[in-house]
């Protein structure tokens, strides 16, 4: 078993998968803490469906590097969704639900009408659940992920204290001179970027799990923001690594394996949290 794993680790595609997996897990866990606390758990889901729709449009238009189209579209939708404060006609959760299912339906419709491959349902399934795309990464994609992750991590660490302040109390932060809307914009852009790169790992239906489970697990046990953030990052990276390795060894789908491990870890933390209290 160990020998088999070591042999797999020699392959570049496995190494790529592990690097990208760890980075995506790290970034999504950090942002997940903010989103869960801001009551935006479902935005990951909404945005990933938007990304799915955008991918379908990119495929129909024949754009070769679809990242260039998908990323801006998702970023714009993220900004629109997070901007919906209290003063909009359609409330936050309804707006997310609308955009989410709308994009999903239009995306599938387009893929069906203008399909270029013979196996539409296969393509759709692979985009929705990730299946094997993490194991077919090109070096360019790997470097792109590394670059984007470094930016996300850097921004998060640099603005950590401000993020805490704004997340805890927007009115107070605003009153003491923090540019709250700018930070909300920043968070919207970051989450959109993470979602687009995370689609490679777990597919668009399962991204929410990657965003919320580590944060929720950490919140069961830890009592400080720093503790929650650090723990969430560790949990997420552990689950991603374990998930990728197990899925390679037992040839299960990568995305759902990672999510299953996340659920398992959450249950453990839940029990630990109960015992500690």
């Amino acid at each position, binding site marked *: 078993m160990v020998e088999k794993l070591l042999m797999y680790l020699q392959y570049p595609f496995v190494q790529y998968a592990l690097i990208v997996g760890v980075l995506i897990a790290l970034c999504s866990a950090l942002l997940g803490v903010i989103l869960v*606390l801001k*009551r935006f758990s479902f935005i990951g889901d909404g945005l990933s469906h938007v990304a799915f729709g955008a991918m379908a449009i990119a495929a129909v238009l024949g754009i070769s590097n679809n990242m260039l189209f998908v990323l801006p579209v998702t970023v714009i939708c993220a900004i629109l969704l997070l901007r919906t404060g209290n003063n909009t006609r359609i409330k936050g959760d309804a707006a997310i639900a609308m955009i989410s299912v709308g994009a999903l339906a239009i995306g599938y419709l387009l893929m069906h009408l203008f399909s270029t491959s013979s196996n539409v349902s296969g393509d759709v399934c692979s985009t929705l659940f990730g299946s094997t795309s993490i194991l077919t990464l090109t070096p360019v994609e790997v470097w792109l992920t590394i670059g984007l992750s470094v930016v996300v991590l850097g921004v998060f660490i640099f603005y950590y204290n401000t993020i805490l302040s704004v997340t805890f*109390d927007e009115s*107070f932060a605003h009153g*003491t*001179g923090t540019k709250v809307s700018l930070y909300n914009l920043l968070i919207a852009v970051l989450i959109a970027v993470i979602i687009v790169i995370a689609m490679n790992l777990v597919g668009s239906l399962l991204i929410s799990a990657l965003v919320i489970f580590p944060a929720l697990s950490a919140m069961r046990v830890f*009592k400080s923001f720093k503790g929650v953030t650090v723990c969430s990052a560790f949990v997420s990276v552990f689950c991603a690594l374990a998930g990728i390795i197990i899925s390679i060894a037992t040839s299960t789908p990568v995305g759902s394996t990672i999510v299953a491990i996340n659920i398992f870890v959450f249950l453990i933390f839940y029990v630990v949290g109960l015992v500690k209290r």
Partner: protein
Amino acid sequence: MALIQCKNLTLGYDHKKLIEQLSFSVEQGDYLCIVGENGSGKTTLMKALLGLINPIKGSIIRGDGLKPKEIGYLPQQTIVQKDFPASVKEIVLTGCQGRMGLRPFYSKAEKQLAKDNMEKMDITDLANRCYRDLSGGQQQRVLLARALCATQKVLLLDEPVSGLDPKVTEEMYRLISQLNRRDNITVIMITHDIEAAVKYSSHILHIGDSTFFATNKEYQKTDFYKSFAEEKEGI
């Protein structure tokens, strides 16, 4: 010159005017209570004083070198805060955000300031406790300590005692009063509690069908207060 002076202020959202032609001023060391019915525009006025919204008409002039960032604000609690996983220390420190500019991490002086204010609010022993595990009164003390990190001059309090039991309410009022007298911090407080307003404040601003600004003594002579006091006695 007055610390904060409002001239012919008209406030509201979109087409709905909540407050019209309001003028009053606050001096350093004053304790102003803003009273009035729900929906009369108390919180809107406070947001305008903080510079979060712009008045439709009129002006707010800050004197004595008071910068907008130097106002300590204690907003009403939100649902997000009720179960927020952060330690007391971390939350008090966020009060120093305003003075940081673009610097990302807290300096030693800011950490000391947070410590001093926790001492002042008597919550030093709670420093490492989780905010969501505290009682309502303790949470308000934490938020007050945070507001003190942001200001040495003015505190704006939006219903600081809502949801607290009578004993804790009394303690909270005493604490605010102490900050006002001992540390000469100007207090502007929104409250429903006219009795407490009369008991503690130096000035009262009444907003609603009839809007008037008066010193505490003058307020007690108004017909409104007399009818309020009679009703109270009747019960």
